């Protein structure tokens, strides 16, 4: 089966600066949810705007359901967009905002009203249909924006930082709602975020973008456990980075310590990343370490360890009760190390 959404060599330049989106290629199946993850200014919002037709591509192609939409203007693309600031029309009620896209499509009043009611019901806002945006909370406005985008039964739902304008307390709830709604409607969705926790929790596939280029596209777990590039290893999740040397296949030396690694590039200088949650501590182990700092984080505690090859972060259940000054033994599983040629 060929992909529902397919980007091939998508490029967008602004003036003489390096391309904002640089030969971006990726595929997404129907009904899946893709997160575009990256630091601010990495080109993820520009990519979303290219999908919506709000930016013109300098090169490359966008296929949606086999249709080439690359050169279509936004009004005929049928993409539901939820803008970061929602962009609700301030002079219209929630219901009028939702109806706007249906009016533009020439849908008759009777069906229009039925669909507006249905979509508002779906986002739980039936009671507030006659409110103006300024009479609603941020979370409610966000749902109106979502309802407005969904009402047109879009080929693609595009969300720009959908949770960034919400309070931290609201965020988790809205995140689950978006996920449930997207599953139920089966709408293929692309959303942009700089928050890796959001991307990992919400998406079927996460595309990490840096300086306009795709670094890696993978399901959340694979992305987290098996980052494909140093950038992804650094950007997604916590890790401690070391400069090392690959001595032989499966053998990495950091300082004077030789460690086993599951996968290694060709022998030579290397960058080594170790995830804190993969560090094992106990009375038995390969290396002597000392706890120098403990940061309590609720269920887990983040420990700073002095090891023979340098300072290393470890994440362990807080209940284990480690204290600064504790001298322990550490084991590093071979697949806890991600090694990249430097």
């Amino acid at each position, binding site marked *: 089966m060929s992909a529902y959404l397919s980007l091939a060599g998508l490029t967008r330049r602004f003036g003489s600066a390096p391309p904002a989106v640089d030969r971006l290629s990726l595929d997404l199946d129907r009904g899946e949810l893709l997160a575009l993850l990256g630091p601010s200014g990495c080109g993820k919002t520009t990519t979303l705007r290219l999908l*919506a*037709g*709000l930016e013109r591509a300098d090169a490359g192609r966008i296929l949606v359901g086999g249709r080439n939409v690359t050169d279509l*203007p*936004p*009004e*005929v*693309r*049928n*993409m*539901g*967009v939820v*803008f970061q*600031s929602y*962009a*609700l*029309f*301030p*002079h219209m009620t929630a219901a009028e905002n939702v109806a*706007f*896209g249906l*009016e*533009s*499509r020439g849908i008759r009043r009777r069906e229009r009203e039925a669909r507006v009611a249905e979509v508002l019901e779906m986002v739980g806002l039936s009671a507030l249909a006659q409110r103006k945006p300024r009479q609603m909370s941020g979370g409610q406005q966000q749902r109106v924006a979502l309802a*407005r*985008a969904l009402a*047109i039964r879009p080929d693609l739902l595009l969300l720009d930082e959908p949770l960034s304008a919400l309070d931290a307390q609201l965020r988790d709830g809205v995140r689950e709602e978006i996920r449930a709604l997207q599953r139920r409607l089966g709408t293929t969705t692309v959303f942009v975020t700089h928050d890796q926790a959001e991307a990992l929790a919400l998406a079927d596939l996460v595309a990490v973008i840096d300086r306009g280029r795709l670094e890696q596209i993978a399901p959340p777990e694979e992305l987290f456990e098996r980052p494909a590039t140093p950038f992804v290893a650094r950007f997604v999740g916590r890790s401690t980075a070391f400069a090392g040397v690959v001595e032989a296949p499966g053998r990495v030396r950091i300082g004077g310590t030789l460690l086993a690694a599951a996968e290694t590039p060709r022998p030579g200088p290397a960058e080594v990343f170790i995830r804190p949650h993969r560090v094992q501590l106990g009375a038995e182990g390969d290396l002597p370490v000392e706890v120098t700092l403990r940061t309590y984080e609720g269920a887990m505690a983040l420990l700073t360890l002095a090891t023979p090859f340098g300072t290393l972060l470890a994440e362990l259940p807080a209940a284990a009760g480690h204290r600064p000054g504790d001298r322990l033994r550490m084991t590093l599983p071979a697949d806890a190390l991600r090694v990249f040629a430097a």
Partner: protein
Amino acid sequence: MRGWLLAAPALLVIGLGFLLPVGVLFRISLNRTDEGGAMQADLTTETYARLLADDFIAGLAWDTVILAGGCAAAATLLALPLALVVRAAPPVWRGPLALAAIAPLMVSGTGRIVGWLAILGDFGIVNGALAMLGLPEQRLINNWTGVRIGLTESLMPYAVLVLLAGLGRLDPLFDEAAATLGAGRTRTFLRVTLPLAAPALLAAFALTLVLGISAFITPRLMGGGRVFVIATEIYDLALEMVDWPAAAALAMLLLVALAALLLLRSLLPGGQR
């Protein structure tokens, strides 16, 4: 207290330059003109009563309001596309474009009218072009047509200024949102741009209406002595007829009418924005 001190120079200017003359004017309007045409000190509202009962003055007031209303509406509608273009321009161009749109303010009113004479006069550019095309000559100056054209043009920069300041609610993002929802340019303009611009349009209309009603130079110079409005009548009363109480009373009536107009607008819904 300190705030008052900072406002003192402005208050002084307003007091000496506006309130004091208005007070003097009001005092004069209560005087009386005797049969010989000389002003006699008095305290009478007789002049007001006479002016308010005068059909000629009522006709002038009507003509003035119709002229100013039409020109204010035209200036506001012509200024809207200009303001929208300035807003939609890349940031680097916005300043220069806005400056260009209000550049007529930097030319003296008289200079501008001399320019219009060259364009609209019997041997001006427009009639020259019409003659070349074999079309009949149009009388575009020294009549109401000339005043309408000139007044509309002179009001436009003010309308642009007010619109540029007042279109803040018009985030370009709304255009993008409308486009993604399938709305073409016309629908977006009618359903989104225009309703959001309405308060600014109303403000621009109100200001240009007030300016148009009190306009003197344009009706005087482009009307060629054939166009009479309240402002030219005040001038004629004061300097031709030398009936100062009447001129002063008419000026006071105009002032009150304009103040009432602005007050009314600020009381209308959306007027406070």
